[in-house]
């Protein structure tokens, strides 16, 4: 028999990079007596299209604003519940062994540093981290020189792997990912104003279980803070 809307767990569709944090928060919420939470992690694009075609999602947390806007335009989220949940920073990483700190600014000879190697980053037109990275390099006036040396990866994690395996001497990834990889070192952080703010928005979808609002609130409460910060996210608001 189908479970009634009351005792159905809250279903969250979230960008895959949030897995560690959300798993922990979900567990904490349940421990507090909240309804069980299940999270489906996938690419924001897939999740958005699934919600569009009627997926049983209560909460959507996107890795960028674009896919949230996509649902917003189609009235598939409750606009009033939408909020920017998390922020992140963009860093330049290098394999630990060869890492020397660099000053990231308009004068940086990034192309010279990369040499005949490649700079690994998220695919610049589709992966959010890639788009932010490209914007940052453009605003710093470095893009033209480096464009031909970009290796666009399918995700930030894949870009990071290229650096940690030594395939690429440099990479542009989120601070959250870089911090966790012992094989790479952060050699510089991009100025916050060099790229559009990195934002993970969250919202309730249109057909939700009543408990969903509760969990969204919990996500935005101080109780969720440690888990997000442990992963290196900055919590917005």
């Amino acid at each position, binding site marked *: 028999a189908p479970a009634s809307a009351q005792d159905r767990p809250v279903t969250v569709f979230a960008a895959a990079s*949030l897995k*560690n944090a959300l798993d922990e928060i979900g567990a904490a919420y349940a421990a507090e007596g909240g309804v069980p939470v299940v*999270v*489906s992690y996938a690419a924001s694009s897939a999740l958005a299209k699934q919600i569009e075609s009627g997926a049983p999602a209560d909460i959507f947390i996107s890795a960028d604003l674009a896919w949230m806007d996509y649902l917003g335009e189609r009235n598939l989220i409750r606009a009033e519940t939408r909020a920017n949940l998390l922020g992140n920073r963009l860093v330049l990483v290098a394999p630990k062994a060869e890492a020397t700190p660099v000053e990231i600014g308009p004068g940086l000879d990034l192309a010279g540093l990369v040499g005949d190697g490649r700079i690994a980053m998220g695919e610049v037109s589709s992966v959010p981290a890639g788009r932010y990275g490209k914007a940052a390099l453009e605003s710093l006036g470095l893009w033209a020189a480096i464009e031909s040396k970009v290796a666009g990866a399918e995700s930030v994690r894949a870009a990071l792997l290229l650096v940690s395996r030594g395939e690429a001497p440099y990479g542009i990834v989120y601070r959250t990912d870089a*911090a966790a990889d012992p094989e790479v070192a952060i050699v510089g952080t991009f100025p916050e104003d060099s790229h559009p703010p990195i934002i993970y928005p969250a919202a309730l979808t249109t057909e939700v279980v009543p408990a969903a609002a509760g969990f969204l609130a919990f996500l935005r409460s101080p109780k969720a803070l440690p888990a997000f910060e442990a992963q290196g996210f900055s919590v917005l608001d």
Partner: protein
Amino acid sequence: MDFLTLTEEERSALLLSLRVSTVATLASLPAGILVAYLLARGRFHGRALLNILVHLPLVLPPVVTGFVLLILFGRRGPIGAFLAEHFGLVFSFRWTGAALAAAVMGFPLMVRAIRLSIEAVDRRIEAAAGTLGASRIAVFLTITLPLILPGILAGAVLGFAKAMGEFGATITFVSNIPGETRTLPAAIYTFTQVPGGDWNAMRLTIISVVVSVAALAISEWLARRVARRIEAG
């Protein structure tokens, strides 16, 4: 964490993958045999189109296949809505959808293996059965089918292995919902997307490989038995 002890979540992903792969393989096998037969023997309009359709999931990036499935078989999709209304068969965001995705992705492999076997059957033997009174369908059931068993086994094991590894179309079609559509490969993928997940991804990968190797071994053993029966007196 002990390497061999699975968390509740991992166990559920493993069991789900087993269920999805088994159901996908068994459920698509009859259709696979039929389509393989039609492609090997049929002379009908639309044969070329059928052939193309069958190969599509191989050619398309899995994500595209997933989207196509979502559009067709989703709750609001033309086929999905029809099946839900008339047969109560719902695919979207259910394990059944994962099985459908796995079946579709494995279908070209399964069909090709079976088709090759059918094409290798000596038609003179089938004709002999015909003179003994067996109708076309009886010939198929009593002669062709037993003779192509090795091909069917090969097709099934390819389909099963593909189902155990399929994730692109699945995650796109039915998402990655724990206990319902988070198969082993989806779980593995998820782990690869976060820092520190490599270890878990590797464990799950090994489990997945072990299962598939077992399926492979069983199929090889069965195929050898069948072959021996035919070859030796």
